[in-house]
């Protein structure tokens, strides 16, 4: 008879108490300037980290030792669950996701303590207060509506088991990356609040938190892409994004964070837009909370929804507190924030970035409005409607194409005032190449106007980047021994700029992947007997046989299919159907052959017990791999951008 549930609960309550204490003490210390209080709150932050880590370790230990006296363990694993999934089951459901979030927050708080206690004495106590306050909320959720250590009586002999769709590498990494992104925005938000509360509404909060914002943005991008990869290779519909409400909820903070990343550059250079940047970070953080609210409240149906109980109400209350509180602070400090905004010209980098912001915010608003419209319709007219892909695609595609164009214009157009000479020098060749590319592709048979436009824009942006890089390297060659060292030196010395370029390249690759896969993928569905084949896009898929096997926690039927391209046999694919005792219907697992340009994708449908026939869906999805490659490029770009500055002092 273990006492893990009670011990875990005690740890949770202790963490809550400590976080509340640390938050109040830090705030009082900041307001009154008493150093001793500051030290006390630091110790509280360390204590919170220790307690949360103990909670996690306790829960993982419970998973590993099959401690079914804890309801969460019993609901998410059983004796057949493989070892590594027993660990990752930690974040497989609602309660665990909260504890993961709280733990990441405590880690970030610790880092903030370590990094800034000496360096930013004015901001730091308020930052700590805000972060501990937010952590306290999550501990509150862990204590009342969603306790991870709730006891289950009587103790069942075996657990229910993990949702089979979660037994996958994508689901191991997707929540972690996503949460690192979401929680990462807490730090810039806390600094922004500290700036507002303390009245130091200058540009410091932005400079200090620049790297945090980039890192959080990166993890959010990664989380979204991994989610797409998981959807693509597990769910069996051959797609990677469905405009599901929860996908949208993760996408919105990404859009506002992207806007923030760009407009802070204006504030750093020109000391303008302070009010706007503060608004953006509040929106971004608010949207991350909105996302978790949406997943857990059940108010909008979704593939992702965990929901149950009163968790949703807690999150809505907290969201209200955060938004009303932070915007009120903003209104209070309004006078200090009004800048002497002046632009030299409407044709300038500042304008390009401002336009970028308007477009990104328009996209955010579109996604938000579409996501809550069903609720609005029901509230106003009592009629349920659905808002899905046709709407989001229609409205967002023009905005994203315009953003692609800006990606080429922004980095090269001059600050302040772009002369005709500057414009011609930087953009004439890329524009020409873009138009020519469109023409060539049209001749090659691509008729879809949107795809042509997308490709032309991608060509345009690529040439702007290449041209700039080439010119810069050539200029640097005068003082460097060789091309390679010139290029390397350039990248390292101006890592922010070129990191940004590489990130843009990554986005371009993703854009190509999206355009190609939407326009050129094909599929078919058919029933085959052993030996029969189906043909699609030059591939012949032949049904060989069916085989049944017993695995640790499920029963599996695998179909074997040989794929040939003309004469040569290319691959043998083995899509399967897994029957889990705790699930009502079998789960289909696709098998695929990935390629640079096209993926062959086979899903096993119905089959006869004796193997005399099987129904399969075959898809040839084009350009999907470019999405994942784009993600890798994005990683390199982000890594480059956050390197420490090596620029020699001006």
């Amino acid at each position, binding site marked *: 008879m273990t006492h893990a549930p009670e011990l875990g609960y005690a740890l949770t309550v202790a963490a809550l108490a400590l976080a509340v204490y640390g938050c109040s003490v830090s705030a009082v210390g900041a307001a009154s300037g008493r150093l001793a209080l500051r030290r006390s709150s630091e110790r509280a932050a360390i204590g919170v980290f220790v307690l949360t880590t103990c909670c996690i370790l306790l829960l993982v230990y419970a998973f590993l030792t099959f401690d079914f006296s804890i309801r969460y363990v019993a609901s998410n694993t059983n004796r057949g669950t493989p070892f590594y999934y027993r660990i990752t089951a930690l974040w497989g459901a609602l309660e665990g996701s909260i504890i993961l979030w709280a733990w990441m927050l405590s880690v970030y708080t610790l880092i903030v303590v370590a990094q800034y206690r000496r360096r930013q004495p004015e901001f730091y106590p308020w930052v700590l207060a805000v972060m501990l306050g937010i952590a306290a909320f999550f501990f509150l959720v862990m204590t009342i509506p969603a306790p991870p250590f709730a006891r289950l009586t009587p103790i069942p002999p075996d657990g229910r088991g993990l949702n089979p769709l979660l037994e996958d590498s994508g689901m191991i990494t997707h929540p972690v990356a996503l949460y690192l992104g979401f929680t990462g925005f807490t730090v810039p938000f806390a600094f922004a609040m500290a700036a507002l509360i303390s009245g130091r509404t200058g540009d410091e909060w932005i400079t200090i938190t620049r790297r945090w914002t980039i890192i959080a943005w990166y993890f959010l991008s990664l989380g979204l892409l991994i989610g797409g990869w998981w959807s693509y290779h597990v769910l069996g519909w051959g797609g990677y994004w469905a405009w599901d409400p929860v996908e949208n909820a993760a996408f919105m903070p990404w859009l506002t964070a992207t806007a923030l990343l760009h407009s802070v550059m204006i504030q750093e250079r020109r000391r303008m837009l302070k009010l706007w940047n503060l608004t953006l970070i509040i929106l971004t953080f608010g949207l991350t909370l909105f996302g978790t609210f949406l997943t857990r409240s059940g108010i909008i149906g979704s593939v992702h929804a965990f929901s149950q109980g009163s968790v949703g109400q807690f999150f809505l209350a907290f969201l209200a507190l955060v938004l009303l509180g932070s915007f009120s602070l903003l209104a209070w400090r309004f006078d200090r924030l009004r800048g002497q905004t002046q632009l030299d010209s409407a044709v300038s980098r500042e304008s390009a970035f401002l336009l970028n912001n308007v477009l990104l915010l328009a996209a955010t608003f579109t996604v938000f409005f579409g996501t809550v419209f069903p609720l609005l319709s029901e509230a106003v007219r009592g009629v349920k409607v*659905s808002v899905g892909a046709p709407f989001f695609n229609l409205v967002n595609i023009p905005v994203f194409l315009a953003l692609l164009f800006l990606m080429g214009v922004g980095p090269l157009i001059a600050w302040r005032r772009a002369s005709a000479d500057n414009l011609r020098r930087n953009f004439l060749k890329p524009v020409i190449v873009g138009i020519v590319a469109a023409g060539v592709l049209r001749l090659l048979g691509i008729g879809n106007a949107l795809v042509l436009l997308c490709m032309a824009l991608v060509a345009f942006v690529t040439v702007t980047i290449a041209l700039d890089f080439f010119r810069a390297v050539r200029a640097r060659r005068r003082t460097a021994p060789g091309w390679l060292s010139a290029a390397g030196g350039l990248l390292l010395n101006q890592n922010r700029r070129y990191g940004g370029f590489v990130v843009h390249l990554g986005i371009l690759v993703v854009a190509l992947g999206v355009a190609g896969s939407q326009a050129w993928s094909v599929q078919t569905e058919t029933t085959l007997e052993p030996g029969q084949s189906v043909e699609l896009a030059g591939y012949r898929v032949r049904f060989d046989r069916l085989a049944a096997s017993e695995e640790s926690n499920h029963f599996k039927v695998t179909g074997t299919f040989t794929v040939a391209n003309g004469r040569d046999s290319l691959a043998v694919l083995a899509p399967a159907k897994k029957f889990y005792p705790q699930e009502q219907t079998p789960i289909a697992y696709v098998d695929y052959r990935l390629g640079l340009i096209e993926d062959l994708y086979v899903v096993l449908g119905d089959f006869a017990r004796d193997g005399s026939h099987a129904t399969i869906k075959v898809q040839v999805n084009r350009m999907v791999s470019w999405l994942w490659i784009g993600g890798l490029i994005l990683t390199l770009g982000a890594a480059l951008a956050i390197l420490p500055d090596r620029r020699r002092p001006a």
Partner: protein
Amino acid sequence: MIPPGCARALATAGLLGLLVCAVAAAPVDENTVRAIGADLRCVVCQSLSVADSPSETANQMRGIIRERLAAGDTPEQVKAYFVDKYGLWILLAPPRQGFNLLVWIVPFAGLAAGLVVLALLVRRWTRRPAGGATAPGVAVDEAMRARIHREMNEMNR
């Protein structure tokens, strides 16, 4: 993370297969079936279309789409049939009429409003006289001008 019902249905790629070659009567264009399916919401999975969803329900609905097209219905009539049976929410995007027109108009209106506000702000901000050394007409000596030029080039990279 995923409620059992939907995820299972989502990943179940058809308990009963559909023999494409067994459809009799008028030849039905699969692209039309897909196009109609793309506008209908799969009822067991909240955000996928009937065309995309691998669930059994979507499978059956595609079969019914094929049947009705083969019997001579137009795509609009097929969609109207589903709306009769399930209500407006079966459509993946609301029809462009009445209250639902809002969802189609508001985003574009928002974008337009944003652009207008931006244009106005830019106009106001560029009209403000620029204070300081960059004001035109201030005499700047040649060496200083050359140095400014050089340093600005350096900055603008």
